Structure formats: C-alpha cells, structure tokens
C-alpha cells in the first residue's frame, strides 16, 4: 500500500496551492502590520525631531546669567525730588546707579566710548531691580547694597555659548574687549547661572533677557477657557441634535454640509468675522481674551461637531434599540448610553480642536491679539496675548536673544497643551469600551 493512494483527500485549504497563497497572504499581513508600525514610527520620529530641535535650542532659556553687583544708592539719583515720594522715586535713574556700580569694578575704564561699551553688559532690568528694592525699603537710600542683576542678552547668549565662532569678515556681537571684561567678572565669581523663574512669571519685553511668557500663559488660559466653555457644550449638543434627533431631510443635509464646510474656512476668516461682529457690532474691546476665545470657539466648533457626529454614528443601533425598548426617552437613550459610548471620539475631537485653537495666531491678528502687551491680563476683557502669538512675535524679532526664548516658549506651549489635554486623555481612556 502506498500512502498516495491511501491518503484521505486533502481539503481545499491544505493543498500546495493554498499553502502558497497562504504564504503570500501572510507576507501581506506582515507588510500591513509593518506599514502600521512604520506609520507610527514616522510620526513619532517627526515629533522627536521637532521636539529635539525645539528643546536643544530652548532649554537654555530656563536659566539666566546674573551679575552680583555692589552698588551705592546715591540719593541724588534714586530720589531726585528728595522727598521720598514713591512717584518721584519711580523716575529716579536707577540704571545709572547700576552702571556706577559696574564702573567701580573697572576703575581703569575712563574713555567715553569704552564706558559705553562696558555699560552694554548690564540689562535694562538691572535698574528696575534696584528700583524695586529701594521702593520696597526706602531706608536703603544712601547705603551700599549687594544685588544680583541680569546681564544684557548678548552676554547671556555668550555665556551660554550661543555665539559660535564668527566667520571671517563677520563682526562678532561682542568685541574682544567686552568679552575680556565679562571673563574678568566671571573669573571673580561675580557671574552666575541661575534658574530663570521670571521667564514663566513676567510679561513680554523688548529685552530678551527680561522677556517672559507669564502674560501669554495667562492670556492663553483665559482665551482657551472661553473657547472650551463655549465650543465643547455647543459642539456636543449640536452634534447630538443633528445625529440623534434632527429629522433626516434636506435641511439637515444642508446643515451637515455647512458644518463640514466651516472646518475648511481659513482661520483668518474667522478673525474677520470676529472683527465684524464682536468688535464692530457688539463693540467689545480689541485684544480681549473673550473675543479671542469666542472666535477660536467658532473655529473649533466644526471640528468638535464633526468628530462627535462620527463617533455617535459608530455606536451600534442595537444599543439604542435596547434602551428605547425599555421605555427610555430619546434624551435618556443619548445621555445614558450613546453619549458615554461616543465619549472617546468626542474627547478626541475636543483635544484636536483645542490643540488647534491653542496654536492658532491668524484669526487673532484680526482682533488685535497679536500685540506687544507687557501687563499681565487680569480679566477676560483686558488686553492680552496668547502663547502662539508670543512665539510668532519673538520669532520675528531681530534680537538674537529671542531665538532661545522662542523655543522655550514653544516648550511652554507644549507643556500647556499636555496639561490641558491630560484630563481629556484620562477621561477618554476611562470611557473606552469594546462591544
């Protein structure tokens, strides 16, 4: 007996041909899986590159170079009025006091142009720091004070090694003499690198070493609070209405197309709308977070609606029928069953739209939020700017010190984004369910 005769007939799935095909199918499977993984890796890689370029340029902005100066608070300079009147003292020449303090360290520098060159070492903020100190304690006038003051941005950049070798024919930002002075101070232990807290707490400034994102953080917070409060409930409610309640007819088709189309409207056009409606018709103030928030909310609305509708639609009809069959009202069906099951998608839409809103500048241009604003906003109607605008403005500034500030501000923005999304991401995870 030979096997060939006796072997039971093979099924169609065990033939050689089938095995060969199977091999091909497996290869396809592997490829497909590989594509998926590759896709994720590509995006992650892109993200990593971007983050690397941002962080490597920006991390130095979180430290600042300071100089320890011993200054004499000359009454004539600090209090020109002589009456210890704070209003008068504000106009005192405190920068001059700081300069005198610096001069005293280099007694041999006498030439006028030399002194000018030396003074560039001090930031404008030096005088402000001394002023604050004196205003807080007028008794200091006439005394000697040792104080840490910021150095000017160019020296800060130099200390952090941001000025590479200047190519031949170029002109270095600092002269050899200036560098020599700075090195002397450094050798004397008067120069420090310390954590730059005011970068997170203070408002914008023309001086890179004094500029901070505090105002922008508050501004972004106020603006996005308005955006979220408006866009999320409105978007979800509109999506629920359109997907679950609205009769399916021509009208709702028109509305659907309309909303999809709104998503494609360039964001700057929303700015135009905000300008026309909120500033010109309602007379709301320019540069105000409420207006910015509303404009961004209108811009985010279609994203939230579209994402929400897509995920509402993905909830199997049998779940609705089960609840309806038990005598739940349609509103109850939605709130008890459909909405929780659609929540992950809704939150995704919210995350994406808020990320978009957080990074958007164009519509804000139209309503005056792209502006130089130093004072930290105290409320929804005060002039404010937001993080991306700050980034945009700094990226466009001539001063070299803003390069690292720009990247650092981006880091702050991303941190803001992560904090903002953390809750949504957590909730999304919680609501996720298989059925």
């Amino acid at each position: 007996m030979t096997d060939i005769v006796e072997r039971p007939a093979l099924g169609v799935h065990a033939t050689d041909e089938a095995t060969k095909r199977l091999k091909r199918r497996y290869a396809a499977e592997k490829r497909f899986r590989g594509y998926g993984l590759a896709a994720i890796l590509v995006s992650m890689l892109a993200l990593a590159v971007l983050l690397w370029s941002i962080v490597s340029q920006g991390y130095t902005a979180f430290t600042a170079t300071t100089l320890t100066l011993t200054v004499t608070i000359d009454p004539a300079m600090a209090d020109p009025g002589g009456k210890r009147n704070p209003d008068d003292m504000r106009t005192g020449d405190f920068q001059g006091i700081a300069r005198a303090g610096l001069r005293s360290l280099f007694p041999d520098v006498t030439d006028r142009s030399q002194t000018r060159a030396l003074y560039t070492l001090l930031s404008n903020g030096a005088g402000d720091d001394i002023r604050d100190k004196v205003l807080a304690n007028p008794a200091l006038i006439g005394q000697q004070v040792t104080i840490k003051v910021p150095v000017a941005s160019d020296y800060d950049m130099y200390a952090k090694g941001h000025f590479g070798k200047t190519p031949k024919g170029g002109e270095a930002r600092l002269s050899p003499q200036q560098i020599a002075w700075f090195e002397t101070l450094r050798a004397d232990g008067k120069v420090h690198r310390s954590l730059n807290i005011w970068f997170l707490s203070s408002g914008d400034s023309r001086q890179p070493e004094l500029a901070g994102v505090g105002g922008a953080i508050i501004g972004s917070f106020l603006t996005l609070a308005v955006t979220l409060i408006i866009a999320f409930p409105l978007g979800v409610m509109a999506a629920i209405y359109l997907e679950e309640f609205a009769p399916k007819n021509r009208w709702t088709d028109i509305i659907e197309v309309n909303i999809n189309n709104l998503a494609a409207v360039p964001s700057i056009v929303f700015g135009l709308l905000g300008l026309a409606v909120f500033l010109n018709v309602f007379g709301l103030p320019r540069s105000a977070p409420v207006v910015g928030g509303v404009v961004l909310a209108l811009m985010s609305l279609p994203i939230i609606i579209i994402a929400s509708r897509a995920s509402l639609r993905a909830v199997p009809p049998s779940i609705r029928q089960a609840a309806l069959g038990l005598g739940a009202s349609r509103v109850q069906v939605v709130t008890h069953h459909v909405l929780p099951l659609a929540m992950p998608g809704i939150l995704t839409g919210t995350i994406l739209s808020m990320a978009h809103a957080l990074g958007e500048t164009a519509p804000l241009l139209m309503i005056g939020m792209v502006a130089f604003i130093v004072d930290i906003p105290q409320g929804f109607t005060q002039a404010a700017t937001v993080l991306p605008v700050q980034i945009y403005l700094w990226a466009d500034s001539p001063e070299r010190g803003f390069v690292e500030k720009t990247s650092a501000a981006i880091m702050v923005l991303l941190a803001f984004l992560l904090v903002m999304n953390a809750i949504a991401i957590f909730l999304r995870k919680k609501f996720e369910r298989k059925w």
Partner: protein
Amino acid sequence: MSPSLVFLAIAALAVFGFFLGRRRVLALEGTRVRASMHSLPSYYGYYMALWCLAPAALVMALWSVLEPTVVQHLVLGNMPASYQAMSSNQLTLVMADIRNFAYGNAGTRTPDPAIADAVRHYHALHETSAIIISLIGAVLGIAGFAFGFWRINPQMRARNRVERFAMAIMIIASTIAVLTTVGIVLSLVFESLRFFTKYPAFEFLFGLQWSPQTAIRADQVGSSGAFGFLPLFTGSLLITVIAMLVAVPVGLLSAIYMADYASPRLRSVAKPVLEVLAGIPTVVYGFFAALTVAPFVRDIGSAVGLNVASESALAAGVVMGIMIVPFVSSLADDVIHAVPQSLRHGAYGLGSTKSETIRQVVLPAALPGIVAAVMLAISRAIGETMIVAMAAGLAANLTFNPLAAVTTVTVQIATLLVGDQEFDSPKTLSAFALGLVLFVITLCLNVIALAVVRKYREKYD
C-alpha cells in the same frame, strides 16, 4: 445689592428648587409606587430649577448686555448742549472720559464741571440700574420658583418638558453653527462684491496669473496687477494633495495599528503622543519646513539632477501632512475601535488574516467616521497658512510640479489681510473675494463628499 450676588442667590434658590420639586412630587404622590406619577422625581426637580433660573438668567443677561448703552444714552442725554452737538464717535470719547473718572483711572486731572456732573449722574444711574435689575431678577426667580412649585403635580409630564427644554438648547446650539456660516458669508460677500466691481469676475475666476503688485496707494503710480485665481487654486490643490498623501496613509495606518495591533499600553501612549503633533504651533512647522525639509529636498533634487526651487510645494506639503496626521490617526482610531467585535470575530472565523479583516470588514464599517476624519484633515490643510508661507513661498506659479514654489489661496488671503493695505484697493478687497470663492469651492467638495459617503455608508448591527 449687587446683581451678581442676586444671581448667585437665584442659582442657590434653583438648587433648592430642585430638591423641593422632588420632595413635593413625592409628597403629592404619597406612598404609592408609580401609579400615576409621570416622570422620575428628579425631573420635577429640574422642572422647578429651570423655572426658577432660566427666565431670571435670561433677563439678567440681556440687561447686562444692554445696560451700558442705556446708561450711556441717559448720561449723555443729560449733558450740556455743546456735548449734544458732538458726533457719536466723539461722544464715545466723552463717555470714556466719564468712565475713567468714575473708576479713578484718569490720573490726577480734574474734570471740567460738565464731566464731573456726568460722572455723578453715571454713578447714580449705575446704582439705580443695579437695584432695578436685582429686583427684576429676584422677582423673576421667586416667581418662577413659585410657578414651578404650583405647577408640579404627579400627572404633569415633567420629563417631556425638561427634555423639550434640553432639545431647544440643542437646536440653538446647532443654529449657532449655521449662524457662523451666515456671518462668514456676510463678512465676505460685501467686500467681494466691491472687488468685482473693480475687477471682472470672469477674469478673476479663470485668470491664469496672480500678481497683486498693484499700487497700494492711490497717489503712487504702480502696475495694474493681475488677479487670476487659478494659480492659487492649483497651488492649494497641489499642497493639499501632497499633505493628504502623507497624512492619510500615515494617519490611517497608525490608527489601524493602534486600534487593532498595538497593546493597550502602547495605544494609550502613542495616541496622545501623536496628538502633540496637532498642537505644535504652525510657526515651528514653518521653520522646520523652510530650514530643514526644503533644503533637504533641494539637495536630493540636485543630486539626481532635478532643478528644485529652494522653496517647494513638496516641503510644505510633507510637513503639513505630518501636522495633520493626528486628525486622521486619532479620529479614525476611535471609530475603528468602536466597530463591534462580533464583526471581527465573524471574519476571523472564516479564516481571514488580521489585515484582511481590517481592510475588508472593519474599515468599510468604519468608513463614515474615517471619511469624516479625512475631510477634517483636508479642511485643516486647505486652511493652513504659516507653513506654506514660510516654506513654499508666495509666488503664484500655475503648476502641478511639486518641486516648484507655489502659493495657496489661504496664504494669499492672510498676507493680503495682514500686510500693508489700502482702503478700497482691489488688492485688499481681493482677499475677501478669495475667501468667498474658496468657501464656494469647498462647499461643492463637501456636497460631493456627502453624496459619496451616503452611497457607501454601511450600517452594522
């Protein structure tokens, strides 16, 4: 009595009303279990809370919107005749002055007598208004409370009423989306019409050259400029297509991998991480595209002997594609995740590989959601400005060559609106026309997309 305090009080009353309504209906009902009570007790609570809160809140909100105008009217109307003659714009200044004095923002200046009177008047009116509105709010709140209380009985269809209220709110929410469209069309249409009186619509729509180098000032003789829409449109199209060629495969494959292959751990990390891509400000992408990708493309191009512009559609498109990956990946992941497991099991049971299951069963089932995600991504690509402006330039070339510099409709709208402008010059007005035409075109695309989705929409379960 401050209106906001009154409002808080009414809100507190509403909360109380909720509990009271619930208690009352239960009391009226006695101990019987649902013999006749129409709705759940808490619906009666909501009913009362709504009656208490909604009318009062509405009226108070309306008042707080109208109050400044009314007060201003009264204050100014009471001022000397010399002020009455002023233009309304000047009056706003006077009013600002009054307010600055009223709130002590005016520094050390002393007001002139008329203003000082007005400031006093202003203060008085302000106080009266606060009292009036507080009273109205309180009365409405209490009246609503009483009315709700009186209306409650177990037979009343409280749930239906509360749900009808919820429905009304939802309809209002949907209306806002529609109103936004109306607002956008209105804010574009008038200026566009003015543009078309200065520049023929036909030439605009079908012109092959875009070169808005016109005189921006009337007293400056300049070139006439050409406003042909087509090169911008092809530019938008080209860049969007490139971006989609990156974003759709990468996004969709990522979504599939996350939803069906990756471990829950990986998925819960990868998804938020990819979403960071959507939050990086576009300036950053712009620099990345212009300074990293564009030179890279150019170098590769010249290495293989191609003449690549230092600014290319390819660089901008690819980077934009990366930016919108999360739009596709996260939204698609959600809908893929939501496809019932029984469908997957059905396919596995027939001997499908995972990828076959995904491609032939899961994706078709998730199609409407995926299309929605892709449409969103396309929308985002069409609307993007900064990356293109920085990496693909502003030169309007009529070309489909991805290695050439192009510009897009959106970029031109933005540069025209934020750049130097002149009232009534076709150059500035053309931005509105661009916006309007873009609006119409995307509208057509969306109509088509809707029809397609309708056709291929498959229902599961």
